[in-house]
């Protein structure tokens, strides 16, 4: 079997309105690694994911997965937006949301197959939300909502997983479940990209860090990236974190 392809980001620049949001980013994302995107507010972390997936226009550059543009292969991508972007009063149950992960694979005009239902059920079991199947999503806690979205991503059976701030407003149990599943996904050779802003202990979970502030400050293993010099360049002189700095 051929080795799983990488995502290559080549000279990527993006504008938000008329302001440059990302400048000349070059990166390679390899399968099997848990990759964390860090940086201050407004550093362009979410923009990086959206630009990679073609959800916003690029000014320059190209993002490829294997031979072709990543935006042409979105059936292989599972993307979980920030929880704050979702209207949680929407009339849907947990099951409705997880089944959304099967829409693309099911295809136009087709009904969900028994196999699809089983995949969605397995995903719900995996995140520990099977008992909440018929609950309205608005009646869940933040952590439970995030686990439902994780289940939806799992149900997509993707090769590339992109999560935007999945740990915001979640409880400890949810955080443990999410990290465990991230590790499992990486272990079976998926590409897992996680936007995060928490520089605490949880940073130890990641295999590769991307430190961003409009441009790429550094990327690689923790010890390479978390140098005093890099942190100052990313956060200015105001960062209170230096616990794990090499």
């Amino acid at each position, binding site marked *: 079997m051929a080795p799983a392809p990488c995502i290559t980001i080549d000279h990527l620049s993006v504008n938000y309105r008329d302001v440059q949001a990302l400048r000349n980013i070059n990166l390679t994302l390899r399968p099997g690694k848990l990759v964390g995107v860090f940086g201050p507010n407004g550093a362009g972390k979410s923009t990086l994911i*959206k630009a990679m*997936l073609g*959800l916003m226009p690029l000014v320059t550059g190209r993002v490829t997965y294997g031979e072709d543009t990543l935006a042409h292969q*979105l*059936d292989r*991508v*599972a*993307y*979980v*937006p920030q929880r704050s*972007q*979702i*209207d*949680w*009063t*929407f*009339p*849907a*149950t947990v099951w*409705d*949301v997880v*089944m*959304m*992960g099967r*829409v*693309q694979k*099911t295809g*136009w*005009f087709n009904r*969900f197959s028994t196999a699809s239902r089983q995949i969605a059920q397995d995903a719900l079991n995996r995140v520990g939300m099977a008992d909440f199947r018929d609950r*309205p999503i*608005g*009646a869940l*806690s*933040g952590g439970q909502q995030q686990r439902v979205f994780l289940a*939806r991503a799992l149900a*997509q059976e993707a090769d590339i997983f*992109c999560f935007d701030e999945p740990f*915001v*407003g979640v409880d400890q149990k949810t955080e443990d479940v999410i990290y465990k599943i991230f590790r499992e996904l990486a272990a079976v050779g998926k590409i897992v990209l996680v936007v995060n802003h928490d520089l605490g202990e949880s940073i130890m979970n990641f295999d590769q860090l991307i430190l961003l502030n409009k441009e790429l400050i550094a990327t690689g293993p923790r010890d390479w990236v978390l140098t005093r010099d890099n942190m100052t360049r990313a956060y200015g002189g105001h960062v209170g974190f230096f616990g794990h700095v090499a």
Partner: protein
Amino acid sequence: MSPELALLNGLTEPLQYAFMQRSLAVAIMVGIICSVVGSYLMVQRLALLGDAISHSVLPGLAIAFLLGVNIFVGAFIAGVLSTVIIGWIHTRSPIKEDAAMGIVFSAFFALGITLITTIQKDNKIDLNHFLFGNILGVTAGEVRDTAIIAALVLLIVVLLYKELLFYSFDPLGAKASGLPTGLLHAGLMVLIALTVVASMKVVGVILVLSLLIAPGATAYLLVPRLHQVMLLGAGVGVFSSVSGMYLSYYLNLPSGPAIVMVVSTLFALAFLFSPRYGVLIGSGRWPFKVRR
């Protein structure tokens, strides 16, 4: 005669007239499609867009009448054209979408009123019927056209249900999974325009927004899933439009305001007495605590 029998008589007797049979058919069809399509408007917070499209159909209707074309076709084209212009203004300038809507729909509406006022002087066309509805005056041709539109609308909603659900709930997630969200959005605009066109003679373009939003909103206070909102909403919509038809018949009211008063009352009842959200008897779970 017992009061029950009298009531039954009062409901069935008018139906011996062909014009009442036509009205009933149109009331049922319009009650269903308005509620189903309007549910999408409600959950996507696009109520104002529904208002914009409904006001924008008038000039198309007038021009089609002048050219001797089916007025439904003209109205549909104008409704879709207004959404295209709104989208164009808001993507090509710093003008926000709601401002673009306000500008475009009032311009279309003004043009429509001007055209119809001019042509109604020497033609058999009454502006008031399009503004406020005239359900008792529908022709056999209009029943046929409404049936075609209703069948088309329901077919599209059933066939695209899972895609439209995903897109309405999480447009970014839907786009990132490879769904053609631009196409789905355009499809939704077409559904709204078709529904508004079919509803013109029943509620009129000014009040059609009520029949689009209120049934779904009423159902939303009572049931938790979108397809249930649509089904219960359709029941609310049909009950309202049929009741409005009788009010129009017995009290000689324009049908639009009659229907809207019924549906608004139903909404008020759900708002006050919904088991889940009712402000008077609800379980008190709203507003939900937002845990962050």
